[in-house]
């Protein structure tokens, strides 16, 4: 990237490893979505558990671009697993913002790291966009899920809920970041990983 400290092979491998761990955690949570009531809880659960992985990831981040690339990879994966391309488009922007916040703390400040995680989490909310704003189109292509599943979900996603989800996601992004930081201190420092 433009920075004088260019990303080396080791950093790229680190991104890959943490993207794999993060994605496994996210997918495990996403499986809950088969039961409609869990679908709106993504914006709470994913930042909360993802925060643990992300904070551990940040201890390996010392150069510009790593968080950004991570967001882009998440976006690509979401697109390939059929969520929609919004996560990729929005992730490119929010990932950059998260990266800049982190850079402002010079990759050391815990406050900036927590805030960066909260911004990073926007890619989770962006998966909801078609559900909220293009609900008819979204469900017209998903008729085989069954009318009752669709009804149950449409009730849970009125348009005014979208800002609520953004706030929830941001809030729990911060909580998740703090939780991750706490666990980092309790477990990973003892194990000599950090």
């Amino acid at each position, binding site marked *: *990237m433009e920075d004088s400290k260019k*990303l*080396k*092979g*080791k950093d*790229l*491998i*680190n*991104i*890959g*490893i943490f*993207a*794999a*761990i993060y*994605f*496994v*955690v996210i997918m495990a949570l996403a499986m809950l979505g*088969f039961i409609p009531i869990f679908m709106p809880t993504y914006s709470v659960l994913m930042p909360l*558990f993802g925060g*643990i*992985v992300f904070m*551990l990831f940040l201890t390996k981040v010392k150069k510009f*671009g790593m968080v950004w*690339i*991570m967001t*882009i*990879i998440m976006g*690509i994966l979401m*697109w*390939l*697993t*059929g969520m*929609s391309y919004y996560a990729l488009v929005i992730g490119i922007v929010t990932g950059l913002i998260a990266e800049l916040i982190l850079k402002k703390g010079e990759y050391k400040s815990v406050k900036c790291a927590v805030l960066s995680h909260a911004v990073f989490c926007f890619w989770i909310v962006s998966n909801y966009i078609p559900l909220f704003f293009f609900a008819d189109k979204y469900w*017209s*292509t*998903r008729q*085989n*899920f*069954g009318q*009752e*599943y669709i009804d149950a979900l449409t009730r849970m996603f009125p348009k005014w809920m979208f800002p609520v989800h953004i706030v929830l996601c941001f809030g729990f992004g911060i909580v998740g970041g703090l939780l991750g930081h706490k*666990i980092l201190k309790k*477990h*990973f420092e003892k*194990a000599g*990983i950090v």
Partner: protein
Amino acid sequence: MEVLCSDKKKSLLDPRTKLLLLIFVSVFVIGNAGGDAAAEFRVILNYTPLLFLLCARRWRAFLFGVIFYTFAYAFAVLLMPHCKGFLNFLILAMTGIVLRFLPGILTGMYVVSTTTVSEFICAMERIHVPQTITIPLSVMFRFFPTVAEEAGSINKAMSMRDIKFGGKKALQMIEYRLIPMMTCSVKIGQELSAASLTRGLGGPGKRTNICKIGFGFCDILVFLGLGAGLAFSILRACGVL
């Protein structure tokens, strides 16, 4: 298929063709692009991964696919008319989700199990994807099975201590399952990164590759098939056909 497999290439298709196939399946089947206009195309795409899995002699994945398809259809056709209310809703949602995601999962299994990491990197270099994206992606795909394996072993160990779903200490699952999984994965990751650095990944020079990839007869067939399907769907959508 023996005849079609040349000696030089290990797998039937070029990695780039496989990726194109994966993108088509995820856009048209999982993403359900095109709606009704692409219905026939979608049915063909549903079964393409099965054919390729068979050609690549991945018997287990092939059987897995066949069994799931059969069950999903059997449920939908035989059981659904007799069920009402919540049960009907459950079965419908389950079969709908299985039928939607299975082709994607099968194609993914085919792509991952028949492409080596060097083939993947070689193909990505040919289509000029920057290294900053290819290396994390290839490490990730290499790493998924490891994470799954570690998580499985930890789950077994922890269920002995009654830390499992429905166990007495279910709440401790996060601390005693997620965190050891991460610790193991990070440790393995460090070893992996040391190993790949020794082999010159991410070095300053231009990487060479002994993998011979290139488009063959089958690739052309797949391209023609996908192109024809796409053209057909577009024409249908525009109302020409």
